[in-house]
């Protein structure tokens, strides 16, 4: 009896329902999320209710003031528009990505991944340079005689939407691509063999099977848009104020924490509601980045009712082949152009960073390294860089260590209710950063942690740890469990077996995860904006200030270096992660 239980717990995992010793490893990570994520968010709800003098005044004010109602309408309008555009552009792009030949696919993948890992601030800066009155696009149009006067493309709805669509496109393309590449190509052939034309097969078979990807992508993008701060704040006009900007102005400028909290709670509640709705169509752990959930049971997914789609396909079949076939031939061209547009902002910034001009003018009159020299000789830029490096290294370490322990604990600890726990632990990924930053700020103020490097690093770790968990869990799940058992059978004790077998195998993953956690922290503006409390000048903060003041050309050099870092991260990631089968 005794030996039976030890046997079970030693070989950890599936059998038995009792917790194993591994469960303890999850404790620090869980505590971290509870103390620095759940408690602050709960505290924020209390603040919004006027604690200790309870009141619903702030919510009432929210509903009474037309200004705030219109802000919420604007937020909704922008988010819906951006999400819709992202689907319309992203779906055909992902389709081509899935079905095209190797050369085009590689190019398109680079077009998606490179911007995806470039910081939002850098990409927004690039759009400012592209769309400004004297910007690249206006110069080109003037040069071609397409317009006689510069067109106003910034600080209005157009600018906000262009910038936001560019930033969210990779977020919708990647889940679409994942789902589409999981669709068995033989299904489409089978439809054709059953008499469906290429367009008919697409409508009745491929499209319905790709719907989970659409749902996941739309959810991610829409939620991200609701909590989007940087791009609308930098590119929008007065009439484009979104809820995040109102929160920031209440908390930072007006010091009206209670009302800022009420606004944050509204945003928070909307996101939670959306996640709840989304979870009915798509498992949340997969939405948050995991390929496989922790539970072994593979739930029957919702199938899109295909009857009317089959009817539509039958109608499409009658159209003949010319129209749809013509469209199919245009698709790769469309994807190629979108790919170029995804790359363009980064490419233009890189090009302009080597310009010899004193200002960001297009085209560059000549080439020099003076922007890089300016960066390296300016003590404020350098100081900001070192602050960022220190914070990011610290944040990366905290996130990687806690995240790894947490993954091991979740994987092998047999914790009760671990699926729900996992989803809870991953939510910081999708919660609007502004809301979380404000909540943590309220907490930190009570301990004097605001404006400190360690405080900022801890907050960054809250955001980065779930990414580490996603990466490490995926790697642990793909590990052959018999390897460690083989170690045990050869005389290693459980600790030695882990140290000599499992750890070396997941070490590359840990390095990648740590680097991504570092990069997350290194690129962050929002947390620094709130938690820096005006005292902490990180590199992105220095850029943010620079952009708001005068769009200094030095920023182009810094931005280029950051993109280089992102490219490095991608290369590292693809070199270190074992080839997926």
């Amino acid at each position: 009896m005794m030996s039976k239980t030890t046997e079970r717990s030693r070989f950890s995992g599936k059998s038995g329902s009792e917790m194993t010793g591994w469960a303890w490893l999850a404790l620090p990570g869980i505590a971290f999320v509870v103390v620095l994520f759940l408690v602050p968010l709960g505290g924020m709800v209390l603040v919004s209710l006027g604690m200790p003098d309870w009141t619903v005044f702030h919510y009432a004010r929210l509903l009474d003031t037309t200004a705030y109602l219109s802000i919420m309408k604007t937020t909704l309008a922008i988010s819906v528009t951006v999400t819709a555009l992202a689907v319309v552009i992203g779906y055909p792009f992902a389709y081509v990505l899935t079905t095209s030949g190797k050369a085009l696919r590689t190019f398109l993948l680079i077009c998606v991944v490179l911007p995806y890992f470039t910081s939002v601030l850098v990409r927004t800066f690039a759009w400012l340079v592209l769309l400004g009155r004297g910007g690249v696009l206006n110069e080109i149009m003037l040069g071609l005689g397409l317009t006689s006067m510069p067109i106003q493309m910034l600080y209005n709805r157009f600018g906000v939407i262009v910038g936001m669509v560019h930033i969210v496109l990779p977020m919708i393309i990647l889940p679409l691509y994942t789902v589409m590449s999981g669709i068995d190509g033989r299904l489409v052939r089978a439809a054709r063999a059953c008499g469906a034309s290429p367009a008919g097969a697409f409508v009745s078979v491929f499209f319905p099977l790709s719907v989970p990807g659409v749902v996941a992508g739309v959810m991610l993008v829409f939620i991200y848009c609701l909590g989007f701060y940087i791009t609308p704040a930098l590119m929008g006009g007065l009439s484009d104020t979104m809820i995040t900007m109102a929160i920031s102005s209440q908390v930072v400028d007006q010091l009206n924490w209670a009302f800022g909290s009420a606004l944050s709670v509204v945003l928070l509640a909307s996101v939670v509601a959306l996640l709840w709705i989304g979870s009915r169509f798509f498992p949340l752990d997969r939405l948050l980045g995991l390929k496989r959930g922790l539970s072994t049971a593979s739930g029957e997914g919702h199938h899109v009712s295909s009857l009317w789609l089959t009817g539509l396909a039958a109608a499409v079949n009658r159209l003949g082949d010319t129209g749809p076939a013509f469209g199919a031939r245009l698709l790769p061209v469309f994807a190629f152009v979108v790919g170029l547009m995804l790359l363009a902002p980064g490419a233009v910034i890189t090009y302009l960073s080597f310009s010899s001009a004193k200002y960001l003018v297009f085209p560059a009159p000549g080439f020099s390294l003076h922007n890089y020299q300016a960066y390296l000789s300016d003590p404020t830029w350098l100081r900001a860089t070192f602050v960022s490096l220190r914070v990011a290294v610290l944040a990366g370490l905290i996130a990687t260590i806690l995240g790894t322990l947490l993954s091991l604990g979740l994987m092998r600890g047999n914790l009760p209710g671990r699926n729900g726990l996992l989803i809870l632990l991953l939510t910081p990924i999708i919660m609007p950063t502004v809301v979380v930053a404000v909540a943590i700020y309220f907490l930190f103020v009570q301990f004097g942690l605001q404006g400190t490097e360690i405080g900022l690093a801890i907050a960054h770790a809250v955001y980065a740890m779930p990414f580490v968990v996603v990466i490490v869990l995926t790697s642990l799940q793909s590990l052959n469990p018999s390897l460690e058992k083989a170690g045990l059978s050869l005389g290693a004790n459980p600790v030695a077996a882990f140290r000599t077998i499992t750890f070396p195998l997941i070490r590359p993953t840990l390095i990648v995860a740590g680097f991504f956690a570092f990069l997350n922290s290194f690129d962050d503006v929002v947390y620094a904006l709130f938690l820096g409390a005006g005292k902490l000048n990180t590199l992105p903060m220095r850029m943010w200030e620079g952009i708001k003041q005068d769009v200094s050309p030095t920023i182009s050099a810094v931005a280029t270096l950051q993109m280089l870092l992102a490219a490095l991260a991608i290369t590292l990631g693809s070199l270190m992660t074992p080839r997926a089968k």
Partner: protein
Amino acid sequence: MTTDTPALLGQVSLKGVSRHYGTFVAVDDVSMDIAPGEFISFLGPSGSGKTTTLMMVAGFEIPDRGAITLDGKDITRLPAHRRELGIIFQNYALFPHMTVAENVAYPLRMRRAGRSAIAERVARMLDLVQLAPFADRYPSQLSGGQQQRVAIARALVFDPPVLLLDEPLGALDKKLRQHLQEEIRFLHRRMGKTMIYVTHDQDEALAMSDRIAVMSAGRVHQLAAPEEIYRHPTDRFVASFMGESNFIRVTRADGGFRNAQGQPVPVAAGADTAGDPVVFVRPENIRIEPPEGAGGPGRLDGRIEDLTYVGDSSMLSVGIGSERLSVKVLNRSGSTAWQIGDRCRVFWDPDDALLLPDG
């Protein structure tokens, strides 16, 4: 043999069909005529071009050269969905988001059949494959064998004259394979459709086909009935791909053939090939007896070097000089119990040996 349709439709011809991918020749000048109602297998190792050939018949690949006709009509460039061919794919390719009934109804809906006609034909088809109680299930809720029957029903519901099967039994265990082979053969007898069956499994091809096209490197090596392929392979590839075989290098000497030791090797007058040929003989056709035995014409003396027991029979490896011959003996009660190291004598009927070109 009863058939639902008069066995007139379903004549498929390939004329000099080739398919290249860059410099790689996937299918090289393949020609054949497939009779209506015939069951023909494309057999070969992976990369032999069998699936590519099938996909050209199906319309998913277009030949670089050559023509494919169906009942005299050129279909070389006809889009796949207009060919009216039933196809059963590897792993069946059932639509996971449609029920069994919706899967089977799909071809009819694409042809815009009337609602009642669809219901009636789907019901009849599901009855035929004994899946009527499962009409509203999703494919993932069915066993492998049931899934295959759905695939068959879907491929046949629009009454195509030809059924193409792309290694449909590829991923199944042995027992289920045999069961499903029987079902497919039963279906073939009953429906009288032309069937083109791709497989890499010799036993499967031998058991099911009217004729087999043995393919390698994009070419058809031999196209003939199973027994002919097994007993009279036209070249060394076909001989070695179909079951176990022995090849003995021989040289011509005074009207007969001799092995490396200079002993005569019996073979009935076979193919007259240029150069030095090989003598091919199946392990089960070699008879073996103790060294003092009477033997037959052209006996060879050797020694048992290895022995593999496989239940109903044993495979002996007999060393003769530098060559080894595989000999299959049936394990009947009372038959000689051979041991490794025993000396022995082997011989065979010259009619069971065949002269093949070496290469």
